């Protein structure tokens, strides 16, 4: 099943993008294959329950907001000297073999319609290469999208016993009339005993439709942590996933969102335990206000060979208004009995007793409520290692709270 999107997409356009980036033949071929596959592949899975599809991606009129040849953005890619932070074109020049080895190895470009579209059309990207034994902090990638649509690709390769913390953020710059589309794929290859924390702050304008897939894969004793923060966009479909391939490897998948007006956030968090002694901790906290809607799916999949697994999942949604809606589905799929797994999910309001306590101490009600909402995000904030991300997320939450009235 597929839709009309490719009606205005042509092979010539894909060739043009590839040529302008002076790409090798294998990459052009991968793009063309992805383009051809659009005919046959589905949109990312969304949850369906009787009488309701939780996010309706099919109905989006992609032609309206995909404009492949006029991509424009400002990009800022910085990091300490020990690591290489390269634009995608530079990376192809300097480390073609490295890129070739990892590109598409974690996220199959043909996973779904939107990944294939992104692979065919991406025009900007970053490669972060952390050599063996290097410890680095605060790699920062800032993207400001100025065109109608932008397709981005990020690859992080952390070699044996290296460590790195990364922030990647997306914003919209120049105003464009009508709907817009941002799409990003991130692959994180974490070597033996390496550690990567990759944080993302999505603060796109509220006319922008946003699709992102961030996927980490670990070798033995590796750890990949992904922090996915969503503030902006009209509609977001985002998925944060980890393959724990190496024995003793670990992941923390952390999510935060704050929806207001008629924003729609569809957030997936998934871990696949494929080796022994692997550990996963999934934490997502979200607030929805006004007519916003949140959809959460969490999956903890413990494979047949994943002996001695520990896997935990918590999801909490706070509803600030009567018109908001929250859907949640935390799933456990357990194929090995030598497992300790749990999940929990809650939906509710700001606790009345907490509010009462604070107002009885003289805190004005509005302020008390705002403080409690801010406090609600603490378990997420505590996980964030990059200060810019922690402070800016907190700042955006405060802005949102300052702009609302009860």
């Amino acid at each position, binding site marked *: 099943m597929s839709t009309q999107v490719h009606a205005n997409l042509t092979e010539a356009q894909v060739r043009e993008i590839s040529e302008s980036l002076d790409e090798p033949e294998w990459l052009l071929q991968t793009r063309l294959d992805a383009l051809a596959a659009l005919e046959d592949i589905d949109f990312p899975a969304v949850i369906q*329950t009787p009488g309701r599809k939780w996010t309706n991606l099919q109905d989006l009129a992609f032609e309206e907001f995909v404009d492949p040849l006029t991509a424009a953005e400002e990009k800022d890619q910085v990091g300490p000297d020990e690591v290489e932070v390269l634009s995608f074109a530079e990376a192809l020049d300097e480390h073609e073999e490295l890129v070739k080895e990892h590109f598409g190895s974690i996220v199959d470009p043909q996973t779904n319609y939107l990944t294939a579209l992104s692979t065919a059309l991406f025009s900007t990207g970053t490669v972060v290469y952390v050599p063996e034994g290097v410890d680095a902090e605060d790699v920062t990638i800032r993207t400001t999208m100025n065109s109608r649509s932008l397709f981005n690709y990020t690859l992080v390769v952390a070699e044996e016993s290296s460590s790195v913390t990364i922030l990647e953020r997306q914003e919209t710059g120049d105003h464009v009339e009508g709907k817009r589309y941002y799409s990003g794929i991130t692959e994180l290859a974490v070597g033996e005993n390496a550690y990567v924390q990759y944080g993302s702050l999505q603060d796109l304008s509220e006319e922008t439709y946003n699709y992102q897939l961030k996927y980490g894969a670990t070798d033995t004793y590796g750890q990949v942590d992904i922090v996915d923060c969503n503030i902006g966009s009209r509609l977001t479909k985002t998925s944060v996933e980890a393959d724990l391939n190496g024995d003793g490897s670990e992941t923390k998948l952390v999510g935060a969102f704050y929806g207001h007006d008629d924003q729609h956030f569809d957030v997936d968090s998934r871990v696949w335990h494929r080796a022994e002694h692997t550990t996963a901790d999934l934490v997502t906290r979200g607030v929805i206000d006004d007519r916003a809607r949140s959809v959460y799916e969490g999956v903890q999949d413990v494979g047949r060979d994943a002996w001695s697994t520990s896997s935990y999942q918590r999801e909490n949604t706070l509803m600030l208004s*009567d018109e908001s809606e929250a*859907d949640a589905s935390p799933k*456990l799929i357990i194929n090995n009995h030598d497992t300790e797994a*749990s999940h929990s999910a809650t*939906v509710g309001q700001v606790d009345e007793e907490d509010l009462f306590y604070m107002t009885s101490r003289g805190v004005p009600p509005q302020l008390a409520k705002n403080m409690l909402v801010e406090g609600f995000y603490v378990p997420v904030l505590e996980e964030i290692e990059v200060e810019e991300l922690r402070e800016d997320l907190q700042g955006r939450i405060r802005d949102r709270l300052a702009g609302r009235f009860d």
Partner: protein
Amino acid sequence: MSSDDHLKETDTEARFEFKKEQKSAFKSEKGLTEETIRLISEDKDEPEWMLERRLRALRQFQEMPMPTDWPGQPDLSEVDVDEIVPYIRPDIDTRGGEESWEDLPEEIRDTFEKLGIPEAERNALSGVGAQYESEIVYQNMQERWQEKGVIFCDMDKAVQEHEELVKEYFMTKCVPPSDNKFAALHGAVWSGGSFVYVPEDVTVEMPVQAYFRMNSEGMGQFEHTLIIAEENSEMHYIEGCSAPKYGRFNLHSGGVEVFVKEGAHVQYSTVQNWSKNTYNLNTKRAIVEKDGTMEWVSGSMGSKATMLYPCSILKGPGATDNHITIAFAGEGQNIDTGAKVYHNAPHTKSTIESKSISKDGGRTNYRGLVHIADGAEHSSTAVECDALMFDNESTSDTMPYMEIEESKVDVAHEATVGKIGDEDIFYLQSRGLDDDDAKQMIVAGFIEPITEELPIEYAVELNRLIELEMEGSLG
């Protein structure tokens, strides 16, 4: 204690697996055609409207696709309805069930004796209905309940004798045939089951029980249960079921509709022990009015594949739902079960407690939906799922879905999965228990929240069934 002698018999073969000669007075052709439906309806001497409902359900069944795309669902490819004999009327004289066990043909009486039904009736029940193949063969209730206006009868008899009530409530407002493919199938070929009516302010103190037995190979059983509990009434309905095992598949597709009126309280308990060639695909639903309470208690031990999600629609303010379910999947079994609750009014409350055990390659799945509608203020739901796994061939899935349209709510879901604790076993062994006994004791403790909801006879029965399931691989 002589009253539970029947529970002491330890041989499963003798308890459930015995087969009787396949005798019948009327047996439909295999498969599902309009002609078969007309024959069934004619054999039952039904009013025209019921035939029409059956035929409409048949059309709906034919139009609907098989459910195949639910994540992790049981494989239903073997379920070919054209290979099923949908209707077998056993060879008995009286329609609507005999009132005395003595009047039944020997092989049928012996069947229910072995299952311990007459014994239980004497000791712990207000009434009993027993179904053999497609028809109720025995139906009785203590006189004191009849005097209070309680009706407990064969569903087919209710169509004749309580036509207006049945016409109003039967697959109209609770489980319409359009609900799902197997509800439509049920609507087309239903036969037997119970009709229960409890008048206002009447409390039926002891449970009533229905027992469903399939004896013939390749048949389908489609009993329909309709319970109407009027305002401030109270009752407890228990159903049990079993069948001997055959090489090819049997199909059970029951339909249960419960109407819990204002302030009423209904408990519906199921001890499901179908043979391991049976596909058990049921639709059970209750509509709960203001301040009413519905309790679903289910133990699913048998069947090759089960898909069952008892549903409560909390329609009136202050309505309450409690679900307690336990699933046990051994070799070759896929038990996909859970709960559905719709909170459609303010101050409604639900609690779901699910326990599952999987071993020897068995697969359990908790699949549940909690929906809180816009306007259902101050509602709360708490879901708790715990799974115990015995070995690495087995699978345990948990797939809850929550849809929350109202902000003034309290929603909590929790689940855990783990293996049977080595330390617990070690502790018990150090106290002198052997490995098997230790495991059985841990399992008994694990399912205790369920067993304590059942009358003692059934709690013992449930524990025994679990023990029997465990013995297979623990020996």
